[in-house]
């Protein structure tokens, strides 16, 4: 089957590609860019994508697919469908499932569930057994089975001693340790500690809980030469620590979630549990600091921390409700609305943070827009204005604070693995 994306803006900063042209894809492989003949148009399905953009497929390196264990909240199938709808051709899924992803068997189970789908699924495996922080998981086996990084996400690796071993042991295969940075003894709270938590009387977690572990991890990465990736960075000092560490040449990368660059802890005044997440929403100062980090490259990528929860679990008294919100189907819109349209980053930087940097961190090949390459593409419209409607989400859960929010920027189609998702359906190409 031949398809043509007609007069589309091809954008891949990795190739210095930024031009408007026709793109011919045959049987899922990029065939030709520009110079198409009348006969090509006649023999192809032609998509009128003028004013849309086409970039390497986006990859969200921090999602919770909940399978195995909580298939009532999300599955590999529904989670990857949500990813496709949100404009992603790949996701990395976190290991805090039930059981945890700490054996090769579970990695293979997830890979099997994901096989044959448009969206690639890259499991992140536990750094320690059961994420308990005591002994290393079988990292080499996990790596061979397909794990792309290691993390005890949900908590930080418990001690510097175990972290040292994780860094050193994983050096042989070059993977990053992804850390959820939070000092446990300061983390007993439902929101960020600030004037707002004082007003609301909610038990609170101070910024320093994050800063401490970021600092520890940076020092341990420097000491061991290991690769550290800071998950969902949210505090001003932590951003600054990472900035300084990069200058020193420490192998550190960082991600931020759309909610941490969009919302501040003042949103909690409604006591709506859809604003309860971990790390908690911080102050406006912190929001400005993460945006600054995105601008100057301190923060490499945007990842959603997509965390589906059932309605009955989330609709709960505030201190008892679980942390986390959905992200896959709103993050592109939030990034365009909050970052591109407010002139913080360019569209080209956006592609870097969604498509290129996450893959580099996970040692994955960045898809190129060149003849002969398998088409792994996100087609998006940065000017499309739309209203979020959780009832239309592909995700099995509905816990989003962005319901009914007006956003600018939306995915139009994704192409990968010889498949296309367009106008709400998947089909082979």
């Amino acid at each position, binding site marked *: 089957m031949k398809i043509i994306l007609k007069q589309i803006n091809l954008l891949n900063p990795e190739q210095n590609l930024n031009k408007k042209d026709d793109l011919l894809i045959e049987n899922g492989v990029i065939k030709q860019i520009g110079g198409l003949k009348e006969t090509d148009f006649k023999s192809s399905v032609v998509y009128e994508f003028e004013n849309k953009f086409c970039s390497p497929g986006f990859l969200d390196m921090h999602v919770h697919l909940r399978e195995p264990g909580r298939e009532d909240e999300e599955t590999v199938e529904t989670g990857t469908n949500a990813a496709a709808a949100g404009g992603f051709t790949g996701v990395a899924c976190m290991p805090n499932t039930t059981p945890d992803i700490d054996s090769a068997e579970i990695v293979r189970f997830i890979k099997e569930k994901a096989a044959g789908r448009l969206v690639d699924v890259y499991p992140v495996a536990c750094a320690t057994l059961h994420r308990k922080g005591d002994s290393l998981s079988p990292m080499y086996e996990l790596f061979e089975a397909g794990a792309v990084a290691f993390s005890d996400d949900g908590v930080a690796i418990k001690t510097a001693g175990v972290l040292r071993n994780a860094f050193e042991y994983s050096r042989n295969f070059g993977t990053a340790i992804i850390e959820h940075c939070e000092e446990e003894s300061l983390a007993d709270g439902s929101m960020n*500690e*600030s*004037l707002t*938590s*004082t*007003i*609301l*009387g*909610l*038990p*609170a977690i*101070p910024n320093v809980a994050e800063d401490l572990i970021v600092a520890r991890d940076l020092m341990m990465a420097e000491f061991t030469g290991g690769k550290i990736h800071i998950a969902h960075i949210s505090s001003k000092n932590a951003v600054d620590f990472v900035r300084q560490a990069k200058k020193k040449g420490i192998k550190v990368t960082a991600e931020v979630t759309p909610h941490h660059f969009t919302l501040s802890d003042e949103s909690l005044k*409604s*006591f709506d549990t859809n604003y309860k997440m971990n790390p908690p929403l911080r102050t406006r100062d912190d929001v400005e600091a993460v945006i600054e980090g995105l601008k100057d490259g301190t923060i490499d990528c945007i990842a959603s921390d997509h965390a589906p929860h059932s309605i*009955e679990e989330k*609709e*709960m*008294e*505030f*201190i*008892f409700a679980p942390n986390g919100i959905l992200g896959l189907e709103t993050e592109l819109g939030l990034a365009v609305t909050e970052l591109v349209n407010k002139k913080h980053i360019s569209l080209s930087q956006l592609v870097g943070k969604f498509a290129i940097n996450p893959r580099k961190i996970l040692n994955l090949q960045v898809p190129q827009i060149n003849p002969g390459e398998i088409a792994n593409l996100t087609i998006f419209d940065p000017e499309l204005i739309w209203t979020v409607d959780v009832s239309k989400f592909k995700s099995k859960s509905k816990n989003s604070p962005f319901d009914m929010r007006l956003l600018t920027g939306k995915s139009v189609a994704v192409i990968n693995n010889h498949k296309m998702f367009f106008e709400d359906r998947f089909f082979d190409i």
Partner: protein
Amino acid sequence: MSLSNRHLLGLYGVPKEDLQLILDTARTFREVLERPIKRVPTLQGKTIVNLFYENSTRTRISFELAQKRLSADTVNFSAGISSAKKGETFKDTVRNIEAMKVDMIVVRHQSAGVPIYLTRISKANIINAGDGLHEHPTQGLLDMYSIKEKYGKLEGLNICIVGDVAHSRVALSNIYGLKTMGANVSVCGPATMIPMDIDLLGVKVYSNIDAAIANNDVLNVLRIQLERDAGKRIPSVREYHKYFGITSERLEKHNKDILILHPGPINRGVELSSEVADGPYQVILNQVTNGVAVRMAVLYLLGTMNL
């Protein structure tokens, strides 16, 4: 005259006129409480549920008495454990109760925000009887009433809240209510017990109890709640008493008229010496009586709004 909101969720943002109306109405009911027959028919036919998810003796009894003195029908629902652990969700519990046709819900819960959440899932008037470390508005109102009873006004008075302010719902309601009425509010306690950025609310912070006594007309002395892990924030109750306890020696040193409030129950020998707890400056039992009058006022004003 009526209130501007059909719920009493907290004193944050409640306009001065509303606070004044509640305090004035409470004075009428305070007189009723001195009569031989202490019952009025005002809320006859109204059904009120006291939904208590946290242990409470005095607040629950005070509300219940206030309801009975207004001739309302009252039902008590006490859940010793949280809905989360019990299996039935809080929302289902509330919907069940609502299906029994109730007009008002008085709620106490260990989670901040539950009263606000209740307004989203119930049509009843909601009264907050204490939510987590957030607010306890009727306690704030009865404290204000008791101060006004002594000084005849609130405006311009210097009032200091002493103790574990960070883990007190009484403190926040006092701060919001008193500041709206024009009082100068301060707090005093070890820094582990003072919440972050409290000064941004326009509240002065004292670290020395003698300075607090010297500069204030009222001390609202909070209970050191050992059951709420207060012990983690101070080395011992002995040391707390030594540096922050209110004793007759401390009060007499300043030789001035001062009013001592305490929301109860008192830890004698910790935040107050026994002498002070029974002494001439305190109005602790009077606060309890005023509590019934204030709660009658709130129930009356909210319960007759929709008529």
